[in-house]
């Protein structure tokens, strides 16, 4: 049960059992907090209440009061007398009030659900075996739980359009649609892009776009997630994999500093889809379409898979030793990445300190923000680089200072973790001029110039943490294995570090966290395993004077963040 401390709670009674909830709690949520599911289709916790599916009908009663005196009525036992409403009421449209009673398992309620299920199914194609929603279809699930089990319908079904392309990513089958209006409400209320609507009326009502318009906003695939049935499907995912074969790994979207919580669905080492994971403090239940397609990065051919020295294959240990040797000798500069995990940034910072505390930069990435779930800062973990101490300023998109220092011969060695120097503004000539240790999962121009090449892992193959724009520490796990023979980035970082200072850090994430919590004040007492599912806010006090570029987004307001930091 999610309760803020100090909030006044009231008692409501669900099937005669008392539940304490904040006043006004939606009764579907109240029941859920008590472990009781009230079946529903149209209700969605993040959208306005429509009340149209009628699946959540319950019996509703309130303690009676004497009309004349206003005194509570009592039964023989001296308990409040409950005045039951004559007909059932929708739980989704009912807000908890003191003493409220609902019945969710009575015969009346069972009959209601049975009736609604039958109505929803009479004009439904009933072709689950060829429907891509099978396995995560509420119609299917509730039919099993509350349905009649056989059909009494012998009339002709209403015919509606099949396979309508609503937009570049979303396909609609109107015969499967139960007209719950979740998708319409999502577009209108969350994205404010009014493209979907119902046309015609009665049983002929049909979901559609205005002819010539498309559902093409960057959040269109959320309609697929919230469609309780198989009406809306993702063109990227449909018919590629049965959902019951997918294993789902919690991850964090790297699209921007918002840090959208995700689930990565994979089977046998291959990713099939990314869906949002609910986090009421970050992304609610939503994510962008563009973020969902980031897994395709893995399918690109430019993957670096070989440890190398001077272009010749070597083993991880050899690469680490060579890298350490180079760093020890040179005038060393460091280029870290806002896409690396906090653990990687921390280890890179320790390496930097171990070999002379040379200058370090991060490559800045910015883009237009959408005030929803894509922020202006396109690095998912800029805050991590600050917290780890790798940088103490905000990054620029181009490494101008580094470029000047190369030209001035102030730097002759560059350790690059996960970035491409050419992309970040250096020239081929400058790359020729210096010795490069490169780690990354991309085989790019920097890799081509590297003395030591170290293959890295993508976020989908790795585990670790990012710190988002709110200074919320969020962890992600590996959904799929990396290429054969490629070790996690931290394993190489630890090897290099041990070469340099001989401390003998073990390449386990727990050990790294031990170090971090010792060395970083805002991470004190924390462990990797101890990071809660919804992330953990850490102190941003030390950085409140930095001019972060993010504007408002769904759950972030820069001014509030500043105020919270005591700024």
């Amino acid at each position: 049960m999610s309760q803020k401390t100090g909030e006044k709670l009231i008692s409501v009674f669900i099937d005669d059992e008392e539940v304490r909830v904040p006043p006004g709690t939606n009764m579907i949520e109240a029941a859920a907090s008590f472990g009781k599911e009230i079946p529903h289709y149209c209700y969605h916790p993040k959208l306005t209440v429509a009340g149209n599916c009628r699946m959540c009908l319950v019996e509703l009663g309130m303690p009676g009061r004497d009309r004349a005196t206003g005194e509570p009525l009592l039964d023989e036992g001296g308990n409040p007398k409950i005045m039951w409403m004559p007909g059932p009421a929708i739980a989704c449209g009912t807000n908890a009030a003191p003493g409220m009673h609902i019945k969710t398992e009575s015969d009346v309620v069972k009959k209601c659900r049975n009736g609604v299920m039958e109505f929803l199914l009479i004009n439904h194609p009933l072709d689950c075996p060829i429907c891509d929603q099978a396995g995560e279809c509420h119609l299917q699930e509730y039919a099993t739980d509350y349905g009649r089990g056989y059909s009494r319908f012998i009339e002709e079904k209403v015919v509606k359009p099949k396979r309508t392309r609503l937009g570049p990513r979303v396909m609609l089958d109107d015969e499967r649609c139960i007209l719950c209006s979740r998708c319409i409400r999502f577009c209108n209320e969350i994205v404010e892009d009014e493209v979907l609507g119902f046309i015609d009326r009665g049983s002929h009502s049909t979901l559609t776009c205005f002819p010539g318009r498309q559902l093409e906003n960057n959040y269109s695939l959320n309609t697929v997630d919230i469609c309780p049935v198989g009406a809306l499907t993702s063109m990227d995912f449909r018919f590629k994999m049965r959902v019951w074969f997918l294993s789902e790994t919690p991850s964090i979207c790297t699209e921007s500093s918002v840090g959208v919580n995700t689930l990565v669905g994979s089977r046998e080492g291959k990713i099939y889809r990314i869906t949002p994971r609910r986090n009421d403090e970050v992304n609610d239940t939503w994510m962008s379409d563009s973020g969902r397609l980031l897994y395709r990065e893995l399918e690109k051919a430019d993957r670096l898979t070989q440890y190398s020295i001077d272009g010749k294959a070597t083993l991880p240990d050899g690469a680490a030793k060579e890298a350490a040797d180079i760093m020890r000798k040179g005038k060393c500069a460091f280029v870290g990445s806002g896409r690396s995990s906090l653990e990687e940034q921390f280890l890179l910072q320790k390496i930097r300190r171990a070999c002379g505390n040379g200058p370090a930069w991060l490559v800045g990435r910015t883009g237009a923000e959408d005030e929803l779930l894509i922020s202006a800062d396109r690095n998912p973990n800029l805050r991590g680089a600050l917290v780890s101490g790798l940088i103490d300023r905000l990054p620029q998109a181009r490494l101008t200072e580094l470029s000047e220092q190369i030209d001035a011969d102030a730097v002759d060695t560059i350790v690059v973790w996960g970035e491409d120097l050419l992309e970040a503004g250096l020239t081929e000539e400058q790359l020729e001029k210096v010795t490069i240790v490169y780690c990354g999962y991309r085989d790019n121009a920097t890799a081509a110039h590297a003395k030591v090449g170290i293959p890295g892992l993508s976020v989908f193959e790795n585990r670790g943490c990012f710190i988002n724009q709110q200074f919320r520490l969020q962890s992600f796990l590996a959904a799929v294995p990396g290429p054969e023979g490629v070790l996690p980035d931290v394993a190489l970082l630890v090897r290099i570090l041990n070469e340099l200072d001989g401390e003998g850090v073990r390449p386990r994430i727990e050990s790294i966290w031990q170090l971090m919590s010792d060395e970083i004040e805002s991470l004190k007492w924390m462990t990797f395993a101890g990071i809660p599912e919804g992330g953990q806010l850490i102190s941003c006090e030390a950085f409140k004077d930095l001019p972060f570029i993010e504007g408002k987004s769904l759950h972030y307001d820069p001014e509030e963040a500043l105020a919270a930091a005591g700024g």
Partner: protein
Amino acid sequence: MKLKSETCEAIDKLIPQYPVKRSAVLPLLHLVQGDQGYISSEGIEWIAEKLELAPINVYELVTFYPYFRQEKLGKVHVRVCRTLSCALVGAYDVADRLAEALDCPLNTTKANGDFTLEYAECLASCGSGPVVLVDEDLYEKVCEKDVDGVADTILAKVNGSVENKETA
């Protein structure tokens, strides 16, 4: 979309009457259908723009209300009430006879566009059924023997007026 100047005037006069612009969508649909004879896709977009709505908001209404048409109606719109009170006193037979007399099946528009003959749901004149609404004129207590007369009136209207009569 080219609207008659009096339609445009009426529209511009009408919108500010409403506390909220969107409320003018039904009146605008009436005016545009009156002007054009139907509501085209272009008409929907025009109204949407006029009222700062998304076209889907207008499209949802055009398809909900049976009075609004996305295809041109016949020059004369004939509606025979088929609901219980009229049916009890012979509306179906009247409808059949009218279809015969006009040589036009029910719920269709005559191929030459002369008229549209349809069933209508309750026209709220149950005490004088069967009733037939010819454009704006209500014919009451129409017996089978009256049908030919009504049909003649309809045909005369077709010949007498060039455009569809919707002047509300």
